[in-house]
C-alpha cells in the first residue's frame, strides 16, 4: 500500500515538473513577444534604414503646330538620388536627360541640375553648398509635371527668369512661421554679347567649366500668411553678366503670388531684367527684358482640373519697337494617380515683331515618383 502511494506521489510530482505553471507560461509569452517585437524592429530598420533614396519624374510631349510640323518628344527623364548623411546633413541630386538622345549633333542634353549638401544649423537656419536651383519664380524649384498646368512650362519663366536655372555656390535659408528668406552667392551668367547673344537664357553656363570671374548674389523673401496663400519676391545682382568681356551689370526682379482656395487657384508672376545700357550697343532693346503671366485654374473634380493662362514677354523691351510675344492658353490636367498626369492644352502665340500668330495643340503625359 505504502509502495503504491509512493509511486502515485512520484508520478504526481513528475507531472508537476512537466507542466509549467501559469507564471512560467506568461514568462515564455513575454519572452516570445519581446523577440517578435525585436524581429519587427529589425525588419523595419532594414526597410526604412539609412538607404539611398531614389525618385524621379519625366514627361512625354506631343506638339501639333497648326499649319506647321508636329513633334513628339520625350522632353525629360529625370532621376533624383538623395541620402540622409546624419540627422542634420543631407545630400540631394537631380540627374536629367533632355530630349531622350544626347551627344554630338543630337537634340538632347545630359544635365546635372542639382547636386548639393544641405546642413541644418538650427531649427530655423540651414545652409547648402554645391550645385542648386536658383530660388526664383514658381517653377524653377518645383517643376514636376504633376504640379503645374500646361504641357510645356510657361514661356515667361523660361525666357525671362530663365528657368530651369541652376548655379554652383552656397546659400543660407532662414525659415520662420510665415516669412522665410534665402540668400545665395553663386556663379553667374555669361552672355556672349560679342557673339550676338543677348538673353539671360543664352547666358546660363550650367556650371560646366563655367567662367566664374563675376559671381552673382540672389536674395528671396517668401511670405505665406495663411494656408493656400504664398507670395514671393526675388532680387538678383550680378556685376558683369559677360564675365569680364563687356562689363555689363545685371539686375533681376521677380515677384509672384500663388493662391489656392478650395477648388480655385491663381498663379501670377512678373519678372524683369535690367542691364547696363551698354548692352543696347550690342542688341538694341535688350537692356530691359520683362514678362508676366496670369493663370487661373479650377479643380472640376479631385482628378480633373482646367486652366487658362495669359502671358506676355519681351526680350527687347528697352526700345519702343513692337517686340513682345503674347500668348493665350487653355487646357486641362487629368490625374490618373496622384503623381501621374495627362495634359492637354491649346496655345495661341502672337509674335508682334513678325506679326505672326501660331496655334499649337499640345498633349502630354507626365509622372513623378
Amino acid at each position: 500500500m505504502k509502495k503504491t502511494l509512493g509511486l502515485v506521489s512520484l508520478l504526481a510530482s513528475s507531472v508537476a515538473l512537466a507542466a509549467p505553471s501559469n507564471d512560467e507560461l506568461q514568462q515564455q509569452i513575454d519572452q516570445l513577444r519581446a523577440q517578435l517585437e525585436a524581429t519587427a524592429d529589425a525588419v523595419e530598420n532594414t526597410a526604412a534604414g539609412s538607404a539611398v533614396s531614389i525618385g524621379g519624374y519625366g514627361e512625354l510631349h506631343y506638339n501639333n503646330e497648326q499649319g506647321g510640323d508636329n513633334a513628339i518628344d520625350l522632353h525629360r527623364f529625370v532621376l533624383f538620388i538623395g541620402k540622409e548623411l546624419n540627422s542634420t546633413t543631407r545630400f540631394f541630386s537631380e540627374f536629367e536627360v533632355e530630349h531622350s538622345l544626347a551627344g554630338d549633333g543630337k537634340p538632347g542634353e545630359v544635365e546635372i541640375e542639382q547636386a548639393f549638401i544641405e546642413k541644418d544649423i538650427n531649427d530655423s537656419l540651414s545652409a547648402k553648398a554645391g550645385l542648386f536651383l536658383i530660388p526664383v519664380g514658381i517653377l524653377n524649384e518645383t517643376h514636376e509635371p504633376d504640379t503645374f498646368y500646361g504641357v510645356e512650362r510657361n514661356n515667361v519663366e523660361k525666357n525671362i527668369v530663365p528657368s530651369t536655372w541652376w548655379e554652383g555656390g552656397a546659400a543660407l535659408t532662414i525659415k520662420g512661421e510665415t516669412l522665410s528668406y534665402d540668400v545665395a552667392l553663386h556663379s553667374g551668367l555669361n552672355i556672349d554679347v560679342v557673339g550676338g547673344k543677348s538673353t539671360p537664357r543664352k547666358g546660363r553656363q550650367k556650371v560646366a567649366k563655367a567662367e566664374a570671374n563675376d559671381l552673382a548674389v540672389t536674395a528671396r523673401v517668401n511670405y505665406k500668411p495663411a494656408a493656400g496663400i504664398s507670395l514671393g519676391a526675388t532680387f538678383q545682382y550680378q556685376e558683369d553678366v559677360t564675365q569680364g568681356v563687356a562689363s555689363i551689370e545685371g539686375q533681376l526682379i521677380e515677384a509672384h503670388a500663388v493662391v489656392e482656395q478650395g477648388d480655385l487657384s491663381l498663379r501670377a508672376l512678373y519678372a524683369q531684367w535690367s542691364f547696363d545700357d551698354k548692352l543696347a550697343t550690342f542688341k538694341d532693346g535688350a537692356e530691359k527684358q520683362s514678362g508676366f503671366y496670369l493663370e487661373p485654374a479650377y479643380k472640376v473634380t479631385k482628378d480633373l482640373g482646367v486652366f487658362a493662362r495669359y502671358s506676355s514677354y519681351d526680350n527687347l523691351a528697352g526700345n519702343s519697337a513692337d517686340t513682345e510675344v503674347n500668348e493665350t492658353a487653355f487646357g486641362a490636367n487629368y490625374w490618373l494617380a496622384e503623381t501621374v498626369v495627362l495634359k492637354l492644352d491649346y496655345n495661341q502665340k502672337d509674335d508682334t515683331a513678325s506679326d505672326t500668330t501660331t496655334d499649337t495643340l499640345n498633349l502630354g503625359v507626365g509622372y513623378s515618383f
Partner: protein
Amino acid sequence: MLKFIYLYLAICLLASNGVAQASSAQFLQQHQFNSSEAKSLWLNKTQQAAIHEILSHPYAGVRIRYWQNTQKAGFVLNEIGKELPITYGIVVDSQGIKAFEVLAFRESRGDEIKNLGFRKQFFGGKLTNDGELNQNIDGISGATYSVRSMTKIAKLALYLHQQISQP
C-alpha cells in the same frame, strides 16, 4: 550694391526665429502618453490593404506602434514627401485629430507644413465613409509633396484609431 546685400543678410539672420521641432518622446509626454509604454497593432491582410490604399504604396513594416491614454491614441509615423521621410507626431481621439506636428523634416523644400497656420487645418478632422478627410486642406505653393505626405498620415492615423478602438 553689395552693402545692400550684406544688410539684407544681417536682417535675415536677426529675423531667424525658431520653429522648434520636438522629439517623439517630448511630443508623447506633452500629450499625456507614457512614452515607454508603446503598444503594437500587428497588421492583418485587410489592414495592410486599407493602408496600401491610403498611402498609395504598401506599408514598410509588419506592425504599427502606438500609445494609448483612455480614448486617445498617439502615433509617430513616417512618410516620404518628395525624397526623404518626414516624421510626424499625431494624436487622435473620438472627436478626430487633436494634435499634429512635424517631428523631423528632411526634405530640401516644403517645410512650411511645420507651421501652425497650415497644420491647424487638420485639427478636428475625421474620415468620411469613403475614407477621405472631411475637411478641405488648402495646399502650399512649392510644398505639394509635403502637403500630400501630411494628408496621407492624417488619414492613416484616423484609420488606425478606428482599428484600435474596435471592441
